[in-house]
């Protein structure tokens, strides 16, 4: 039981990360990761939808005929997206305007329907919820990392516009780390997202490779030599 949760968290955060390994949901990932605030906002929204839809799908899984399960899942996901969208509209209006079309587009995020189909429709609700939480955290972490890199290189700041997400007090979170006369616009523009994500994936693979090399270096017990020819 315990080890299953450990596997779930490891999969969601690292081994089977939706953004770095499955490469799902790249459209919002690349489009709104211009600043940390936008990335965090969309990351949290996706996380909430993922947890909610996973739990609901898991609860209704025994009442849904197999033939129409996909439309049902989509309706469930769309419901949660609508909830999140209306909530953001009410409480974080600035961020809602900044993210624009990409909030309703969470419906089409393949990572969510992928988890509903692959995991939630086969497991009970608390496991499915935990899986949604971990997958959502993994997705949000990549989103925030990419947003931080792009914001830092493109503007020299971090948490610019955090008050849109967290309220007035958060405007003091904005840090100007580097002062550019001419920022590297490429990082803010769409190509910067692709190049940044490429570097993140390369970094993950490099770390994995290092880990594997370390494991491979561990001494292997010498096998007994067996003589197979010329046995007299």
């Amino acid at each position: 039981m315990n080890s299953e949760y450990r596997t779930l968290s490891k999969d969601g955060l690292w081994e089977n990360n939706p953004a770095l390994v499955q490469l799902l949901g790249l459209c919002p990932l690349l489009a709104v990761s211009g600043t940390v605030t936008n990335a965090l906002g969309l990351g949290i929204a996706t996380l909430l939808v993922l947890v909610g839809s996973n739990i609901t799908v898991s609860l209704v899984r025994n009442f849904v005929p197999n033939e129409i399960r996909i439309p049902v899942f989509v309706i469930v996901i769309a419901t949660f997206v609508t909830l999140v969208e209306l909530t953001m509209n009410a409480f974080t209006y600035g961020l809602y305007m900044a993210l624009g079309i990409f909030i309703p587009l969470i419906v089409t995020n393949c990572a969510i329907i992928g988890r509903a189909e692959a995991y939630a429709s086969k497991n009970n609700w608390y496991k499915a919820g935990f899986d949604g939480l971990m997958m959502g955290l993994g997705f949000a972490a990549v989103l925030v990392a990419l947003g931080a890199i792009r914001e830092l290189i493109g503007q020299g700041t971090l948490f610019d516009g955090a008050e849109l997400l967290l309220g007035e007090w958060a405007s003091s979170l904005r840090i100007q780390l580097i002062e550019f006369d001419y920022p590297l616009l490429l990082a803010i523009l769409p190509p910067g997202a692709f190049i940044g994500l490429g570097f993140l994936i390369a970094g993950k693979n490099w770390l994995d490779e290092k880990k594997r090399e370390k494991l491979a270096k561990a001494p292997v017990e010498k096998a007994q030599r067996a003589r197979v020819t010329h046995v007299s």
Partner: protein
Amino acid sequence: MSFYIASSPHHHQRRTTAKLMQWVLIAMLPGFLAQLYFFGWGVILQLLLAIAVALAAESLCLLARDRAPSTGLQDNTAIVTAALLAVSIPPLAPWWIIVIGTLFSIVVVKHLFGGVGHNIFNPAMAGYVVLLISFPVQMTAWMPPTGLATQAPSFIDSLYLFLFQFTSEGFSLEQMRRVDTGAMLDAVVMATPLDHLKTQLSQGATLSEAMQHPQFTGLAGMGWQWVNLGYLLGGLLLLQQRIIQWHIPVALIASLAFCALLGSILAPDYLPGLSIHLFSGATMFAAFFIATDPVSAATSSKGKLIYAGLIGVLIYVIRSYGGYPDAVAFAVLLANLCVPVIDQYTRPVTYGHRKEQG
């Protein structure tokens, strides 16, 4: 007595990559000298810094990839990339522009894709596009060619502008770029011929009105035509030395010329004519030095014709209808992307075999 047995292409002259690259550098000289004459000392400063950065980046990358830097440095490819990039950017752009561009070219475009012979994009052009997208102001700040400039910056001034963006007397680059237009008493900031035409045409002027500007003398604008003729001369030298084959330059120039002729027949007042397209901007430079990069270009002869023809069309389309005045870098990168497909469908038939029916 031992015989030396070599495998099949039995060249009489065995040329190494380093030798080829040396020839490319030599062939760049006429165009480079023309640029030096018309655009001042900045060209040399850019070139020197670019080569220094390229060699340093190349060595570090090779070290990081567990390869001996000496072998990689001796093939001169990094120097050629640096030189191609250095002559593409405005001569008095601040020093960090060329540093960022060269680093991107060598580290990301060349070595992350596997080093010499493995880059799918032309490193110099990818570096140029990164710079153009990131720093549009600095990357379009070309000096007016000598002869139009009110004051040509001296070597010291060029060095100051290059390092600090101000001359020793405190003039900014913007002030140095002003020219006397003669007709108007006001001095205006200079734009390149293609840039000037683009702006004027987009403001509703006709081509002949836009061409009233004093920089349009001779074929295609003061200075630029000579730079292009210089690169044409160097390109012919490369052809004569058989460093490059005729396919790419001929197909590129032919398809661009065809489009330009068609354009000037259909809309003579709104689309720049043949001479502008061929002898302004970076056309000749692209045809002989950029598109002919043996790594990122198509392989077979037929493939080369298609590849270069595509570049020509793209240059014309982007120049005429795109957002940027010149389009060589974008066109080359887009064509680079198509190379795997082109190679797939233009694979020559093995001798003695029939063409596969498909």
